[in-house]
């Protein structure tokens, strides 16, 4: 073997910051190459909204827009937790009924036992944490496949809800604070204020990052692109706030209904929180690593079992929050809370948003976008007035059509070899 001496290269040249032009150009080539991030889900949403607006003009009203958020909230919250489990290539079939159990605990504590709302919320969330820990231990330490563990959970929790409900009767939730979560709105001014704070925070983070990288001589995005992003976020937040701040009561004089529904900032906050955890902390990094290649993660010294347990805890905790929102929206908890299609919709939301069932690929934003798709379909179908059978069929077909848009726009990715 020739060990010809080859002169050692100097440290890698730091290429100069690209201009706005090259940045846009690169972005376009990435899109054409199939690396399109959230675009397909956004396309799907747009297509659905346009379709429904044409079919039923009432779809396109401020009132309906507000309804959309509260209708999709519980499923979206559960889906956000499920993303963590799916990132590891695991599944949690019990998330739906876990939310039911937590909601049942909430209702029992606040209505039957008469404690204040915060005690009830705490109890519900603690229940979620406990459930998640047990599931996680069974999967990680005992080594039972998560499908089987959570199938057992699915059955058992269904029973627990029934038992907590004293067999069949439902429990009302009448506490004002709890009911407000899914049924009341922020005052218009508060809505604007929150949006402003969010945009300002984003701008601060972006600019700080830019300065930091530039100071070290690392590649940075051009400042114009950063400015465009900030403005973009402003529009994305501002338009809905504006629409939601319109009066949407039919009897505006008697009772005014306007403002951003309270669940919206809750979801937004959790979205930011979990996105931060996944992308800016080493914990999040480890979640992706274990999902991508558990053996490599183990060899890198990551405590794989601990990660595995933690995602189940997060999932069940988010399920608990979803359960609280569901209880608030229904003003009550019944034995079917978290049952029927909740689980499949939640997993479906994550998958439609782009999270893989095989682990390693997904974002919390996926759950929100996918949750929006599911909510829009449900909402739109509700306006169409089909009979049961037809409605199921049409819902399935619409879901499929939306997914086809997504699949076709991702097609290129496969064609160019970047998967």
């Amino acid at each position: 073997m020739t060990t010809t001496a080859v002169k050692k290269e100097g440290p890698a040249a730091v290429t100069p910051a690209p201009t706005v032009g090259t940045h846009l150009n690169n972005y376009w080539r990435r899109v054409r190459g199939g690396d399109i991030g959230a675009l397909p889900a956004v396309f799907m949403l747009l297509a659905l909204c346009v379709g429904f607006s044409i079919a039923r003009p009432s779809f396109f009203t401020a009132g309906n827009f507000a309804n959309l958020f509260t209708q999709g909230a519980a499923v979206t919250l559960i889906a956000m937790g499920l993303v963590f489990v799916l990132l590891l290539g695991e599944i949690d079939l019990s998330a739906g009924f876990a939310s039911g159990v937590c909601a049942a605990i909430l209702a029992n504590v606040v209505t039957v036992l008469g404690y204040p709302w915060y005690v009830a919320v705490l109890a519900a969330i603690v229940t979620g944490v406990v459930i998640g820990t047990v599931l996680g231990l069974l999967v990680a330490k005992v080594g039972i496949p998560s499908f089987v563990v959570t199938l057992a959970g699915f059955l058992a929790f269904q029973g627990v809800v029934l038992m907590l409900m004293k067999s069949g009767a439902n429990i009302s939730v009448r506490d004002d604070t709890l009911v407000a979560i899914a049924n009341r709105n922020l005052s218009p001014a508060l809505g604007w204020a929150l949006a402003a704070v969010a945009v300002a925070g984003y701008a601060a983070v972006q600019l700080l990052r830019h300065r930091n990288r530039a100071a070290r001589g690392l590649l940075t995005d051009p400042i114009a692109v950063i400015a465009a992003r900030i403005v973009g976020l402003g529009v994305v937040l501002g338009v809905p706030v504006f629409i939601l701040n319109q009066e949407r009561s039919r009897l505006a004089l008697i009772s005014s209904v306007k403002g951003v529904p309270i669940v919206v900032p809750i979801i937004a906050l959790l979205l930011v929180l979990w996105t931060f955890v996944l992308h800016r902390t080493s914990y999040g990094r480890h979640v992706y690593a274990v999902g991508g290649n558990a053996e490599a993660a183990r060899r890198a010294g990551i405590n794989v079992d601990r990660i595995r347990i933690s995602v189940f805890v997060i999932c069940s905790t988010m399920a608990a929050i979803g359960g609280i929102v569901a209880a608030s929206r229904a003003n009550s908890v019944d034995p079917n809370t978290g049952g029927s299609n909740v689980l499949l919709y939640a997993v479906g939301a994550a998958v439609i948003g782009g999270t893989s069932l095989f682990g390693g690929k997904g974002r919390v934003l996926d759950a929100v976008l996918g949750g929006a798709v599911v909510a829009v379909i449900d909402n739109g179908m509700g306006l169409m007035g089909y009979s049961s059978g037809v409605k199921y069929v049409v819902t399935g077909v619409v879901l499929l059509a939306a997914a086809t848009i997504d699949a076709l726009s991702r097609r290129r990715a496969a064609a160019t070899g970047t998967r």
Partner: protein
Amino acid sequence: ACGDNGGSDQAGGSNDKKPKIGVILPDSKSSARWEGADRKFLEAAFKAANVDYDIQNAQGDKTQFQTIADQMITNGATVLMIVNLDDGTGKAVLDKAKSQGVGTIDYDRLTLGGSAQYYVSFDNEAVGKLQGEGLSKCLTDKAAKNPVVAYLNGSPTDNNATLFKNGYDSVLKPKFDSKEYVKGPDQAVPDWDNAQAATIFEQMLTQTNGKIDGVLAANDGLGNAAISVLKKNKLNGKVPVTGQDATPQGLQNILAGDQCMTVYKAVKKEADAAAELAIAVAKGEKKDTGQTVHDPKGNRDVPAVLLEPKAIYKDNVKDVVADGFVTKDELCTGEYAKLCADAGIS
């Protein structure tokens, strides 16, 4: 559609716009009636009165139920007629409708603590009572001594199933207490699922070593599941089975002697009464129903139209056909033609 506040002064007393009635049915699986009968009869009634309507089914899903209600209000419904899935969501929907000036009617199920203007219904406990009485009549006919009675209840998550059970318990429990009857296995069937019902009943039979002398099945579907197991064990016809809903299948089982009775609810009458009320509310008229029902939770008396369910045995199957609830074509197929003739159905 929203935002038209043209001088409405009173909830229910709506504007000069054409009335539009939204109806939310609960599900399509607990009973065949909702999609099979109620929808049909309500549509007919609304069409006859020439009012706009929108009938939807919540598929047993509360979230769906609320979503549909939201959508109907968005769509400009002036009256909302609901069959609630539970009191909580029912109340949430009724309250929201009221605050938006939409008229409200509880159909078939009273929302306790709710705010509906009217209530139209069959009494679910009365249905259960008829089932209990029917079963004891059949057991008496069979001259059974200390018969073991098994319960095949409806879905554990369905509040109606609880009401039915309260009904038949009120008849049968005294007989258990007096040792006239022996209480056998008592199980609920998740989702009213007939396949699971068959397994559950088969296990009841195994558990009691085959000693079951009467089956209180909460509806015809569950009854048929029990009958299929009895047939397999060649016990059909020897063990009376109850039912509900007067489905063609249930009636055929009765004609064949495998089922002892079913409960017939003249849904058409209920639907007609409800439609009439809804149209009145939509037009802002007040109706005197002549009857009220007490809502213990809301502590108020709700004006109500209450209809009587009817027990159907072999000898009065023809009444159901005469009512047009089940057609002769549906019922008297193949081998049942002769049985129909025997039962006087023409």
